[in-house]
C-alpha cells in the first residue's frame, strides 16, 4: 500500500521524468551522465527548496514545512 506522502513523491518524480523526456525531444540535447542526474537534483530538490524558502521569506506559509 502506497502512503499519501509516497504517492505525492511518485507524482513529483513522474513529472520530472516526463519533463526530461519532453526537454530532450524538443531540444535534441540528450543530457549526458553528468548533467542528467543534476537535472533531477535541480528539479526535485534545489528548485522546490528555494521556492519554499522564498515563500517563507515573503511571509507566506511555506508549503511542506
Amino acid at each position, binding site marked *: 500500500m502506497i502512503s499519501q506522502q509516497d504517492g505525492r513523491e511518485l507524482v513529483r518524480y513522474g513529472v520530472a*521524468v516526463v519533463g526530461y523526456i519532453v526537454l530532450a525531444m524538443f531540444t535534441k540535447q540528450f*543530457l549526458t*551522465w553528468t548533467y542528467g542526474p543534476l537535472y533531477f537534483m535541480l528539479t526535485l*530538490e534545489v528548485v522546490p527548496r528555494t521556492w519554499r524558502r522564498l515563500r517563507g521569506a515573503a511571509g507566506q506559509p511555506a508549503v511542506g514545512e
Partner: protein
Amino acid sequence: MSWAAHEFEDYFIQKHIGTKASFIAVVIGAFLPDLITKSFVYEHSTDAAHFHRGWPGLGFTHSLMFGVIIATAVLAITKSRSWALGLLIGEWAHVLTDVSDTAGVMLFFPFSTQNLSIQMWKHAASQGRLGDAAAYYSGLGGVWDFFWFCMVVIFARKVFRADYFWSVVVPADFKVWSWARRRLHLTDNGMLLAYRAYFLYGMSRMVAWFLYARFQTDKPWQPVWGGPKYIKGNYLMTGEWWRIALSLGIGGIAFVACLYLLWRLVIRRLWARGVDPEVVERGSGLRVAFH
C-alpha cells in the same frame, strides 16, 4: 555499448551487496570504462570502435584487469575494502554487459587482445552519437535496457525505499555520504534523491532515446539478434572461430593465473590491513562481497 543498462544494473547489484560494498563506488566503477573514452569516441568517427574497444587504443579500459588494477590501487591508497570491492564489481558489470554488442571487449587484456562479443546488438559509434543511439534503440539494445529496468523494478525495488537507503546504503559508506552532505549542503531528501537520481536518469534516457529513434529518425524497429540489419555495425571479433577460441582460452587462463599471483603476493596483504565500516560482517567465498 549500453545506454541505460549500466545505470539500472547498479541498483540490482546494490540489492545483492547490501552493506558489503559502497554504492557510490559501484556507480563510479560502472562509469569508469567510459569515463575517459566516451567523450572522444565520436570524434574518431573513422575508427571509433577500435579506439573505444580495441588495441592499440583505449580498449584496455574495458577489460577485467583494468578493474583489478584500479580496485587494488584504491585499496592500497584508501584502505577501504568497500570502495575497492564496489569499484571492481561496477567495472566488471560494465565490461560483461559490453560483451553483448558487435564490437565486444578485450576481456582478458593484456594476455589477449582478442575481442569477445555475442553480437546481440550493433555497436555503431562510427555513425556519431545520435546515429549510435538510434541504432541501439532500434535493435535489441533498447530491449536489454528494458530488461534491466524490469529486473530492478520487480526484484530489487526495495533498494529505493527511504528506510533501506538510511539503514543500508548510508552506513556502508558513512564517511562519503556525510562528506557529501556537508559539502553540498544536502537535506535528507537531497541525499535520498542523489541516490535515486541515476535510476530516474536511466529511465528517462531509455524512453527519450527510444522515442527519438522511433519518431525523429524514422528508423524501423528491428529487435532481432544482431539488428538492426540496415545499419553497418562495427565488428572487432573477426577471424576464424578456433583462433578466437584459442586466443581467449589462453588469455583467460593467463588472467586467472595472474589474478591468483596478485592475490598471493599483493592483494591479500592489502586486504588484511584494509578497513571495513562498522556495520559490515563479511563471510567467506562469495559472501565477502555479497549477502
